[in-house]
């Protein structure tokens, strides 16, 4: 029982890995519109469908607004759906994107993260995904090509859980992961089929003459049952998000049993057991950060790392627990929170640590914008600066890692 299945091994980039993850999850409908750096992902999907490898309706539509809109219709009719976008595409998609969680539509959309215009750029960064963090989608960030592939079926399992019923963004960094090539193991289709089971997408809200209902009547207003009904829906969404923390862990554990690959579902703690100083990372930068942690450890520095995999819902308690014993924290972001002059992940971690009885000094580092590298050397600088923070050298401004590159 629970025999681990090893599938075929291929070498591919992150976009192809995402396409394989989608293919193996057997969506009924895939809607696509190209945008850098996502384009090759949808090209792979189109080719899979053209080759008969994937049995899905391909909707080549006139823009991202319609990409998500056709999927709304399809989910309400009963389809499992997939798409992917980036930056301006996400911005153009925003109107239906904004609506998806409120309709509780379980779908999976990859965000191939990219810095957002302006200044005009087409390269990786997480400004797009971070800008939409409060909309109500679940956000999972991947570190490697294999994690991208594996996280997509996991995301369907989470999205379609009756206690969750929310859309999921599986995010991978544009350029570094989208075009970076690595060894990837393809699970057997039978393994993914058994993992996902029957789709459960529209039992709660549907557009079906056999089950006639009005989907999304006007709700709210100041009179009658309006206010309480609106609150009920909003609280329901919050409850789905809270439940997702549990369901995400269960889904990752189940996937691990079937494939032998156990990804940290909410956060990953790396060499944190006796760490006095911690880095917090998200996405593909984590690989270089781990190398920098290893080098610092060789120098006898007690440093560890916390990688955030699930950013929405925010695993605040886990993060507070993981960081509770350190003396200083350096949070590295790949995007900017303009209102607070720091990185958005920094601000989130700051809020999570309020639960602790002690106040831990923290610093915001921002790097890797618009396709810039965050190298091991950059992280060595982050390690160094965070140790100085632990020693009492406070900072009032974020450190921009590529400022002098």
């Amino acid at each position, binding site marked *: 029982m629970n025999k681990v299945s090893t599938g075929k091994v291929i070498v591919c980039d992150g976009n192809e890995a995402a396409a394989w993850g989608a293919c193996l999850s057997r969506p009924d409908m895939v809607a696509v519109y190209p945008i850098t750096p996502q384009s090759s992902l949808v090209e792979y999907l189109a080719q899979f469908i053209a080759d008969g490898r994937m049995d899905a309706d391909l909707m080549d*539509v006139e823009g991202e607004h319609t990409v998500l809109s056709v999927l709304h219709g399809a989910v309400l*009719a009963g389809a499992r759906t997939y798409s992917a976008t980036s930056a301006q595409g996400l911005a153009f998609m925003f109107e239906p994107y904004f609506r998806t969680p409120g309709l509780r539509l379980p779908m999976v959309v990859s965000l191939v993260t990219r810095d957002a215009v302006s200044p005009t750029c087409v390269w990786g960064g997480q400004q797009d995904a971070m800008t939409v963090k409060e909309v109500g989608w679940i956000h999972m960030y991947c570190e490697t090509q294999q994690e991208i592939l594996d996280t997509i079926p996991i995301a369907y399992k989470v999205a379609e859980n009756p206690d969750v019923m929310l859309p999921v963004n599986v995010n991978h960094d544009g350029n570094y992961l989208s075009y970076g090539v690595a060894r990837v193991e393809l699970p057997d289709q039978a393994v993914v089929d058994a993992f996902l089971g029957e789709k459960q997408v529209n039992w709660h809200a549907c557009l079906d003459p056999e089950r006639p209902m009005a989907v999304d009547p006007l709700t709210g207003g100041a009179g009658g049952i309006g206010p309480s009904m609106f609150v009920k829906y909003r609280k329901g969404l919050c409850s789905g998000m809270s439940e997702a923390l549990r369901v995400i862990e269960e889904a990752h554990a189940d996937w691990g049993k079937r494939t032998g690959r156990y990804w940290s579902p909410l956060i990953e703690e790396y060499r944190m057991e006796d760490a006095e100083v911690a880095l917090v990372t998200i996405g593909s930068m984590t690989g270089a950060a781990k190398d920098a942690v290893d080098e610092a450890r060789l120098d006898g520095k007690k440093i560890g790392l916390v990688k955030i995999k699930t950013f929405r819902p925010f695993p605040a308690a886990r993060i507070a627990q993981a960081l509770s014993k350190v003396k200083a924290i350096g949070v590295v972001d790949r995007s900017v929170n303009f209102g607070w002059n720091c990185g958005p992940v920094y601000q989130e971690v700051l809020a999570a640590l309020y639960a602790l009885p002690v106040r831990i000094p923290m610093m915001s580092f921002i790097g890797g914008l618009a396709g810039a590298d965050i190298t091991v050397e950059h992280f060595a600088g982050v390690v160094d600066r965070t140790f100085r923070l632990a020693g009492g050298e406070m900072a009032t401004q974020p450190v921009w890692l590529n400022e002098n590159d």
Partner: protein
Amino acid sequence: MGVAFDSIGFKASLCDGCGDCMTACSKAKGGASRISIVPGAKAGTFETAICRQCGDPKCVQVCPSGALDKDNGNGIIGWDASKCVDCLLCTAGCAYGGIAVDETVARVAKCDQCDGDPACVKVCPTGALEFRKAGTIFNEYGGKEDLFVPGLSGCQGCNSELIMRHAMRKIGRNSVLATPPGCIPGMGSVGYNGKTGTKVPVFHPLLTNTASMLSGIRRYYDRIGRKDIVVMALAGDGGTSDCGFHAVSGAAERGEKVLYVCVDNEGYMNTGMQRSGTTPYGSWTSTTPVGEHMKGKTQDAKNLPLIMTAHKCRYVATASTGYMEDLYEKLDRAIEASFEGFSYLHIYSPCPTGWRIPASKVIEACRMSVDSNFNPLWEYTNTRGLRFTHSPDNAYPITEYVKMIGKYRHLSPDQLAHIQAKVDEQVALLKLMAAESPPPQAAHRAPAGSSTPAGAESSQPARREIARN
């Protein structure tokens, strides 16, 4: 439910007294005409005397021999020559002059509607005579389930409710209905706080994504073999022509099998009568107000149905609630076409509140919008091209239409001339398109424009001058 019957309608304002109807009737019936055109009370006007096929026929009541009898199947009052004793009491009993002595045979004669295809109507050159099939519509659909609850909160006189109820009676329960933000959901069709006014699956798409959501629904149902569901929208003109146009255009380009009904009230009326891309030139709206420096909208409306023909949709048509028989025929064709490709039906629907029309005058305004060529009625298919379904000839001057509508109250002579010129230009273009289209059926040429040679200069529509008293 009672039974209704078709009837021959007479529009006195269009009759020029030519008498062609009487000639045709005589010829068809081989004797005196059963229809008479007589001078009206005012000089230059005409009235008709023809059997009304009364529901409570006095002629039948007074007939002593049982020669006259109303057929409850088709509503026709029939005359049985073998029973008639030639007493002529019926001619005295009828107050309308609907039955009279045919002097050629010295017996009474009356209209029998030529088995549903009256000879008089066919020859009427001005459209004053019409064979109105509303009775057939009532009989066919009056008993069908109304798929909206009673008491939708539309404005008094609004035709949108008429369109919704009629369309859905015809389409039935095996459908999915999108009603994007606007008057149609605004009157409670999707509902409010957990209650709905619609009995079929209904939803608010976004204002901007109606055709896209419908595409997704249709594709999935096709995928799982439920191909008989009508996937449709009852959308407004603003969402269709402005912010949601990308979705409409994209769905049409992809040939999505969707029935898209645009109910055009020439603006964002539900939110307080703001201008849209389909608001006509000169209109007052709340965002094209009339003041010292502005006199209503300064741009012409975009012709959305014509734009849709350029997408080579499976079906495109314009319709008006002023001509329900035409609307019903087009609904049939539009529904059928929606199983093959994108099907677009554009229905003109005046807004009594926002256009400043008394509720009692809305249908008249609808008719005049068509009769003045402001809203010509036509249909298009990707294989048969464009044809008029209502003759654009002998149109009223546009002043006759705009004077019925308060939102045009301020128009200057220059503005009126601009509107007339644009209306003429539009009809000329449609005539060219109709002329170059293949005939819809081998035996049935387009009624107008088809005689215009391809590429020839189109003549201005012969405009009918109204008798002024």
